[in-house]
C-alpha cells in the first residue's frame, strides 16, 4: 500500500503551525482533485474557444487575430484551469516559441496545436508582516493557466499523459498536463495567423466527462443533451418515470429546451417511431411489395427483406400473380386471347407471363395457316415475405 490519506485534526489550545494550516488546505484540495480526476475525465468544461477575427494588412492580405474566450478545464491530475478573461494569442510569443515550420506544402500548410497548461505563480506579499523570526514568504499562490504553442504533431501524444497515483493530489507541475484548445495556421510571409481550427485529422478539443456505473435522477427525469439547452435541433434522450406514454424518448431540442420527440417507448413496451425503421427485421413480420411486372423480369423483394434472408430460409415468400389486359396482337385480324402461362420460378422469382392469341378469321383445324401464337405480356403481382422467428423467440 502507498501512503495513507491523513486528515488534519486539532485540539483546544493547540498552537497552530503553518504546516498544520497548509495540511488543512492540501487535504481539501487533494480530495477535490481525486474526485475531478477519478469520477470525471479530463477536458474542457466550459468555453475556452479560439475565436478568429478577420483582418487585413495594409497591403490587403487577409489574416486573423485569434483570442481565447474565458472558461474552465480540468486536467488529468484533477486540477482546475480557469481562464477568467479573454486572451489574445500573441504573434510574438508564437514566433519565439520555436515551433514554426519553415518548410511545408503551401496548399496544406502546417497546423500548430494550442494547449492550455496549469501554472502556479506565488504572489509577493504587499504588506510588511513577517514570521516570528523575521521570516517572510508569499501567502497566496495564483493558480494560473497559460497558453502553449506546439509543433505540428504534438497533439498525437495527449492520450499518453500519465495521471498521478490514486492517493495523490494535483500534479506538482513538473510535467504540466496539456489540454488541446484547437489549432492555428501561420503565414511566414506576413507573420500572422491565417486560420483557427477546432480539430485536425480527427483530433480535436476534448471535453470533460463523467465516469459512473449508475446515474440516478432525483426527480424522476433524466435528460442527456448533446448541446446546451435551447440549441435548436440538438438531439437529446430523456428517461421519465411518471409518464405512461413515453418512459423513454429520443428527440431534438425545439429551440426552447423542450424536446420534440422522434421516437418514444411507452410503459407498455410500445415503440413509436416517426421515421422509417430500417435494417434486418424478424419476429414473424409480414412485409409486402406489389406492382406490375413484364414477362422475364425478376420480382423485387419487399423493402427490408434481403436475398440472403430468402436464400437462408429466414424469409418465406408467398407470391400472387394476376393477369392484366393482354397486349395488342400484332397481326391484323379478329383475335381472341387467353392466358397461356402465368407463374413464377420459385428459385429465381422470374415471371413467366404468356398470352395465346387465336385468329378467329382463320379458325379451322384443317387450315394449315391457322394463326395461333404466344406473346409475352405483363401481370400484377404481390410478394409477401413472412419472416421466421428468431431462435430465442422460438424457445420462449
Amino acid at each position, binding site marked *: 500500500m502507498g501512503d495513507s490519506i491523513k486528515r488534519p485534526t486539532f485540539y483546544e489550545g493547540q498552537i497552530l503551525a503553518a504546516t498544520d494550516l497548509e495540511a488543512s488546505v492540501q487535504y481539501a484540495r487533494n480530495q477535490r482533485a481525486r474526485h475531478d480526476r477519478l469520477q470525471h475525465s479530463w477536458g474542457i468544461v466550459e468555453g475556452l474557444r479560439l475565436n478568429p477575427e478577420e483582418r487585413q494588412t495594409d497591403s490587403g492580405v487577409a489574416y486573423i487575430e485569434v483570442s481565447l474566450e474565458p472558461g474552465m478545464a480540468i486536467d488529468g491530475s484533477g486540477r482546475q484551469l480557469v481562464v477568467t478573461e479573454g486572451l489574445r494569442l500573441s504573434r510574438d510569443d508564437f514566433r519565439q516559441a520555436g515551433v514554426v515550420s519553415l518548410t511545408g506544402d503551401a496548399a496544406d500548410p502546417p497546423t500548430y496545436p494550442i494547449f492550455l497548461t496549469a501554472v502556479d505563480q506565488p504572489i509577493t506579499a504587499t504588506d510588511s508582516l513577517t514570521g516570528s523570526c523575521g521570516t517572510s514568504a508569499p501567502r497566496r499562490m495564483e493558480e494560473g493557466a497559460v497558453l502553449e504553442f506546439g509543433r505540428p504533431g504534438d497533439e498525437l501524444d495527449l492520450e499518453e499523459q500519465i495521471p498521478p497515483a490514486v492517493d495523490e493530489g494535483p500534479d506538482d507541475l513538473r510535467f504540466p498536463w496539456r489540454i488541446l484548445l484547437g489549432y492555428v495556421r501561420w503565414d511566414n510571409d506576413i507573420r500572422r495567423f491565417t486560420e483557427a481550427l477546432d480539430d485536425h485529422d480527427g483530433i480535436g478539443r476534448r471535453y470533460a466527462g463523467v465516469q459512473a456505473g449508475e446515474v440516478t435522477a432525483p426527480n424522476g427525469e433524466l435528460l442527456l443533451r448533446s448541446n446546451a439547452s435551447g440549441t435548436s435541433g440538438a438531439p437529446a434522450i430523456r428517461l421519465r418515470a411518471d409518464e405512461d406514454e413515453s418512459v423513454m424518448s429520443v428527440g431534438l431540442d425545439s429551440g426552447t429546451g423542450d424536446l420534440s420527440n422522434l421516437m418514444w417507448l411507452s410503459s407498455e413496451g410500445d415503440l413509436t417511431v416517426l421515421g422509417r425503421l430500417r435494417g434486418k427485421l424478424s419476429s414473424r413480420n409480414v*412485409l*409486402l*411489395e*406489389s*406492382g*406490375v*411486372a*413484364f*414477362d*422475364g*423480369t*425478376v*420480382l*423485387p423483394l*419487399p*423493402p427490408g427483406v434481403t*436475398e440472403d434472408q430468402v436464400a437462408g430460409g429466414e424469409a418465406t415468400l408467398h407470391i400472387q400473380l394476376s393477369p*392484366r*389486359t393482354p*397486349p*395488342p396482337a*400484332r397481326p391484323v385480324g379478329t383475335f381472341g386471347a387467353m392466358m397461356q402461362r402465368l407463374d413464377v420460378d420459385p428459385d*429465381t422469382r*422470374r415471371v413467366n407471363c*404468356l398470352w*395465346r392469341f387465336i385468329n378467329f378469321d382463320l379458325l379451322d*383445324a384443317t387450315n*394449315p*395457316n*391457322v394463326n*395461333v*401464337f*404466344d*406473346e*409475352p*405480356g*405483363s401481370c400484377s403481382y404481390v410478394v409477401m415475405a413472412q419472416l421466421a422467428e428468431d431462435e430465442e423467440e422460438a424457445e420462449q
Partner: protein
Amino acid sequence: MKMTVIHTRSSGHVLAAFSAVADPERDPTPLLEQGLLVRNTKSIKPGVSPRGEELVIAALELEATVLDLVSDVLDTPRSFSVINGNLVRNVSEVTGVQFNASLQSSTQLTITLPTALLPETVIWIQAERIGNDGPRELRNGLLVVDALRPPATASPDPDGIIVNQPVRVMLGISSGSDDPPHASPLTFPGDYAIMVLVAGRSPVIVTREFPLSPGPIIAA
C-alpha cells in the same frame, strides 16, 4: 408513381419493365444479376413444332432506369427505348435484315442492314444457339455507325451524312469455349436466335439455321 425499365446499356432498348409500390425507386441492380430472359412471339401451326425465340441478355449488357410510370410501357415495353434518360417510342423495325454464315468460308455470322442509318447510330446484336443439347453458343457485338463512312450520295440530310450503304456487323462464332475465338467454322450447326437492336427502332428477333449454303437469307 414510378416504374423501373430494364434496357440495353448500349442501344437503350427497353426489354422489360416493372413497378413496385412499396419501394418504387429501389436499386434494381440485384434483380439484374441473373440477366434478363427475352421471349419473342411463338408461332404455333398444325404439324410444325412451335417456334419462338428465347434469349438471355447478360447483366453486363443491361441497365435499369427509374422513370415516371407510363402504363403502356408496362404492357408493351419493347415498343420503347431510353435515350439520354428519356423514354421515347421506337419507330418501326429495320426491314430486310440479312443474315449470312457459311460453313465453307466463314467463321462469322454476318448481318447486313440495308436501311440507311444516321451517323452514330448504335447497333447491338446478340446471337444465341437454341434448341439442342450442344454447347451454348452466345455472341454479341456492338457497332456504332461511322460518321465518316463514305460516300454520302443520298439526298442531303440536315443532321449530316446519311450512310446509304449496307451496314455489316460480323460476330465470330466458334466451335466451343475451348477454342480460340473465330478459330474455326461453325461445327455445331443448329438454330440460332438472333436479336438485332438498332437504336430508336423496334427490335428484330428471328431464328436462323446455321451453317447455310453460301448466299444471304432475307428476314421476313
